[in-house]
């Protein structure tokens, strides 16, 4: 193949390096710099793109941006739930109250503990389950299907089932520990166990999603690389560490970020099982927002908690992106 002469690029196809703007008449002299397109022309060219984006942007503006702005505005007012437009501007009073409040900081710590334990357990369990179910064995499809059931069960139903499992009197868990002579922990009635019990239920409910994501990621690991490692005498563990894990790392990082954000804002499973109790042991920021807004009717203060919780989520997200950016600069996967 030989390169085509420049004179043959005028009819139908855009020559390399041109702007793609149609000629308005006559040919531009060879070597002339491309004429800049006007703003209106660019707008006209891209109008369709913006039009297609408009529904999504409108949705985001109404249900996210407006809600966010309204939440921030509410957070500096004293507003009751039943009179949302009748709030009184109080400046930073709500934030000052929260920062000086022990229960608020207890909620922050509870949220961090719940999020930390949940994310670590979900990602580890999900990855382990994915690796196990990636291997070939008889009945693999059935086991995969069974393993996804917790994710498919509605959260409220799962919460009620766990509440029954944990029930002090009839719960199967208590019966088991009693039969083993281990006594009867108050799974949902003892503050030392409350957070643990809710975390276990959350992990059970959330790990199948992590497993499915990791399973998909495992499919992308080139088999030739594994084979090469085996030929070089690597053990299964060494192959996993040196070949598989580096391929999974980006997925694990994204999964960790998503699980962290979801855990910070998780509500139903905690509220249904404990309502934030016993003695505030599971009173995460989101449960606290609900109780402040709907039980205490302090919409302004609840919004202030929401703003601070948003700050927590944003901090986690920013840390993720900073770490990601550094990795990119270093050329790591």
């Amino acid at each position: 193949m030989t390169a085509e002469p420049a004179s043959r690029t005028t009819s139908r196809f855009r020559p390399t390096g041109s702007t793609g703007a149609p000629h308005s008449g006559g040919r531009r002299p060879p070597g002339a710099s491309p004429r800049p397109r006007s703003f209106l022309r660019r707008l006209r060219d891209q109008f369709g793109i913006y039009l297609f984006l408009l529904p999504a942007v409108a949705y985001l503006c109404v249900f996210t941006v407006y809600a966010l702005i309204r939440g921030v505005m509410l957070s500096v007012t004293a507003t009751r739930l039943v009179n949302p437009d009748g709030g009184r501007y109080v400046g930073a009073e709500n934030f000052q109250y929260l920062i000086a409040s022990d229960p608020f900081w207890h909620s922050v710590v509870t949220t961090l503990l719940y999020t930390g334990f949940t994310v670590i357990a979900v990602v580890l369990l999900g990855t382990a389950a994915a690796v196990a179910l990636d291997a070939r064995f008889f009945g693999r499809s059935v086991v995969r299907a069974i393993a996804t059931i917790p994710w498919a069960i509605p959260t409220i139903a799962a919460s009620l089932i766990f509440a029954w499992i944990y029930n002090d009197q009839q719960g199967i868990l208590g019966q088991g520990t009693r039969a083993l002579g281990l006594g009867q922990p108050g799974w949902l009635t003892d503050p030392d166990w409350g957070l643990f019990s809710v975390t276990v239920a959350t992990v059970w409910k959330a790990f199948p999603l992590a497993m499915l994501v990791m399973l998909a990621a495992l499919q992308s690991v080139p088999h030739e690389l594994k084979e090469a490692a085996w030929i070089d005498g690597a053990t299964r563990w060494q192959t996993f560490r040196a070949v598989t894990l580096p391929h999974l790392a980006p997925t694990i990082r994204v999964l960790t970020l998503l699980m962290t954000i979801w855990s910070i804002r998780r509500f139903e499973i905690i509220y249904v099982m404990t309502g934030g109790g016993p003695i505030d042991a599971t009173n995460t920021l989101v449960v606290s927002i609900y109780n402040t807004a709907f039980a205490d009717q302090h919409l302004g203060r609840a919004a202030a908690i929401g703003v601070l919780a948003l700050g927590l989520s944003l901090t986690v997200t920013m840390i993720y992106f900073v770490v990601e950016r550094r990795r990119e600069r270093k050329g790591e996967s």
Partner: protein
Amino acid sequence: MHTTRRTWITALAAAVTGGLVLSACSGGDADAEGGDSSGPTTLTIANWQFNDTEKGRTLWAAIEDYSGPDENITLENVGSAFGNYADRLNTMLGAGEGPDVMIMLEAQAHELADAGLLEPLDDIAEEMGDSLNGTNESGVILDQQYGFNWERPTYNTMIYNQDVLDAVGAEVPTTYDEFIDVSETIRDSQDAFDLPQEVFGFAGRHQTNELNGWILEMANWIYGHGGELSDGSELTIASDANVAAVQAHLDLFASGVPPLGDDASTFRAKFGQGQIGMSFENSGVATTMATDPDNVIDGTNLGAAPLPLPNPGGHSQLLITVNADSENVEAAKDFIRWFLTDEAQEAIRLGHGASALATDVPLDPEFAEANPWAEQFIESASDSRSTLVAGFELDSVMIWREFLTAVEELRINGGDIRESLEQVQETVEAELGR
């Protein structure tokens, strides 16, 4: 060809987007039914009870044929499940929407009346005069009548399983000491029962994850021991009577008598199956338990007696109210007028079982004969008290939540009751900016 297709798709997207924007911008008055009081009008009425299986059907059947003075009214049930009922109503009314007529707990009525979202009904109270009983005082908020008694399921009553008491040879307790004796006798006499499961002397709520229900039950302990959470102007959370009440509550729950960890639905199911001796219960639940054919408890072995405490206890109060922002305020008020007539009160009586109503309409004779325990609830409703904290009505739930969280902490971790309640008082006062 490509250009033409792209133009069409772009135009379609523009049309869809425009439609979405227009529909979002259009107001909520598309459904303006019932705006004209002379034409056919649909009156929306919200009550979570209509969604209950048996009771809901009976109550709805009692009112659904109402057609108003001009025979132009149709009722529409827009209630939701109890779990999110109050939240939904608050958010709807806060946005200027909501049903025309609403049944709600009195705490919510105080919040909504304070926000100007309920229609004053003083003219109806005046018209009805002496036909209304004292329970309607609960509907007087800020010196105006904002609601009438839809149902008062009083908690000021102890229900008991006569078979359980008979099995251990116990009499119905009338004092607190007798109550403790009987409870402990049941706990210690498991051989007397022909059941594979343990039989408990008493059961009650004791966890903050059932906050609203526990408030109603704890009020029995506080009021029953002569306590109050306020004197009308100042909080009295750490008073001697309250300390004594909390001490009694904690002692009982530490004695092994009640099933720890059971929520209300669990211990009520146990009561229905003959596994609970006594409970401080409300009339609605007693009616449901006694009439459930799957239960071993029925009208013959269910008993009801005054609380074995020195003073009367609390009650739950449901009020019927009118939405001030309704387009059908007059039609809604006509419905309230009808609701307070003897005809309507008799019609809803069967659905409400043993609860006190807005007028002194007697129990349904057939029901009363099958359920001799029911009359006690009517008597108990006459002196039971609201769980709203006097002088702090709008912050009642918050005050009770702090109080009950402290009680829960004392039950689990122990500690000095007075110190703990003093701490609650400080916390609540700080919260209220006092």
